[in-house]
């Protein structure tokens, strides 16, 4: 479903020239629960950003669901992100003025769905992530774990092809982090949604069914694991 071929990316960070990716090639199949691990600066977030179409590669190719996204125009990438990709961020990035319900339903509103469908799907996903009864709370009235559940619900409610999660447990305590991971893995198993994480947390790596380790912008190891 996702084919990454000889991907290169460099950027300037302050005064230093960083070679974030130096020729990444990998294949990600539908329904995978993949963790991209590695130390800071290994290129895992950059790889996630490129797969998520929010950054552009210097060279190489990414084919997503049959589309060569590395050749697409910025406007086309927006449509791909809107329809096919869900994001979960390390610090949740919920909109503070919206309630849990509104944060999730916004994604469906963007797709122009009818109000009744939006409501049904939003309530269903909030139930799924264990936030039933909290849908009218704003992010400030939710714990970190609950906020991350809202973020996961927001990413999944549109039924994307892939969910990209950048260090999803980094701002959570280990118990909460684990419950989030269990929840995501459950969704992966039931719905077959592809999950790709970046992490340097061993607990997250343990949950992954495939672990891809990066080091200095190159794949150090790539192994399938049993649950």
């Amino acid at each position, binding site marked *: 479903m996702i084919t990454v071929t000889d991907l290169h990316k460099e950027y300037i960070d302050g005064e230093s020239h960083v070679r974030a990716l130096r020729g990444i090639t990998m294949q990600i199949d539908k329904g995978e629960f993949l963790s991209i691990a590695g130390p800071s600066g290994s290129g895992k977030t950059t790889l996630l*950003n490129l797969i*998520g179409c*929010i*950054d552009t590669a210097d060279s190489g190719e990414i084919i997503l669901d049959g589309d060569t996204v590395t050749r697409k125009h910025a*406007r086309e990438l*927006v*449509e*791909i*992100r*809107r*329809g096919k*990709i869900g*994001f979960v*961020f390390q610090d949740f*990035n919920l*909109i*503070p*003025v*919206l309630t849990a319900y509104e944060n999730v339903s*916004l*994604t469906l*509103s*963007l*797709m*122009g*769905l009818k109000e009744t469908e939006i409501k049904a799907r939003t309530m269903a996903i909030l139930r799924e992530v264990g936030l039933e009864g909290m849908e009218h709370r704003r992010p400030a009235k939710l714990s970190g774990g609950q906020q991350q559940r809202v973020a996961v619900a*927001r990413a999944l409610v549109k*039924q994307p*092809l892939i969910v990209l999660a950048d260090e999803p447990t980094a701002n959570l305590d280990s118990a909460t982090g684990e419950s989030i991971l269990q929840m995501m893995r459950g969704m992966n198993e039931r*719905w077959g949604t592809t999950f790709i994480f970046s992490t340097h947390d061993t607990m997250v790596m343990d949950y992954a069914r495939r672990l891809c380790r990066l080091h200095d912008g190159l794949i150090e190891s790539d192994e399938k694991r049993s649950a």
Partner: protein
Amino acid sequence: MKTRRRAGRTPLKVFLILAVKNMARYRRRTLITASAIACGVAVFAAVASVMDGFSSESDRNFIDYETGSARIVAPGYWEEREQFPLDMVVEDSSEVIAQLEQEGWRAAGRTEFRGELVIYYDPFPEDGNIPMAFAGVDPDRDPEVFRLKESIEEGRFPAAGEDELIIGRWLADRIGAEIGYGVTIMTRTKDGYYQIMDLEIVGIFNTPNPHVNRNVGYLPLDTADYYLEMEDAVTGVIIRGDERVPGSLDPAPIASLMEDRPVRVMSFSDMNKEFAEIMEMSEQITSLILMLLAVIAIVGISNTMLMAVLEREREIGMLRAMGVRNREIQWMFFFEASGIGFIGAGIGVMLGSLLMWLLVTYGIDYGEMLGDIDLGYRFGEVLYGIWSFSALIQAAITAVIVSGVVSLIPVRRMLKKQVTDCLRHS
């Protein structure tokens, strides 16, 4: 969870709701910016009210006391009128007026001339000579054309064939004149000979036109005709129309009526040209002030939106990552800024209406401020505003649109950044 739908057109309602919620999120900032806009709208409305009042009152005072709706003069007279030439006249004025009246026009002749008003100690407090303008007016017809007779405050209008004079309250107070006092006018006849007129003050008027109050004395037209040896000639035949808007009377029918006579027909606009130029200059200054107000409002709203955009950089990044299109983000901020503009405009309209009400009801008293200074303006000591709803609506709409448009500058700059850079913002 099997169906997947292609991303469609997003209803703008989503971003409108988000904008409203964000306005409430930064309540204090919204109110401060809205207040600045409100002040701009209110001041604009108040200035427009005063300017319109000024212009409207000036036009009315010109027509009612000086120019009429149209005027028939000798060719070249108008250009020389400040010299009060008595050799550039409309001959056979009685015939001209009869001709006009036959066609349904209200018309009256006037002979305007220059002279010196000579007053003597006892009954006046002291001797003196005052150079000023005089006009011979037809006691029967003049009230059909001008409102001078209505402005008599004390005494009466001069009667035909009598050696009588009326003067303005301002002048009467300055020279200590009272009804029944005798004065002398020293002037020259049509042929240039010195002439002396001994007249009695029979009335004191007080018009809303300070120029008339201060500078002009009126005597019967036939008396002026006799002393100045005009032989039925007048310096002008003034016509009054029924037009509602000053200057809208079409002088063409009068001109065609007069085509066989060696005269020129002047419209109000022709006569009012110089004052209109002064008004235009004054309006330009007002526009400059209003532009400064607009700049202040623009700076206020653009600062607010710049801060809003910078503070929400991560949020913008997240929305873009979710697939929100750049133009939709622009709409969101446009709605937000327009909303602030709308609140400001709403408060501004209320505040502006209150200011207008004060100006219409109480006006601004310039009397104290100007004292005896004559700026040549044709309004009284109190300048009243008029209700100018168009100015209010214009200011309110401008505030809303400008606020929205100004917000796009920082947003567009932000949208040029990479999504990843926005997301990295702390």
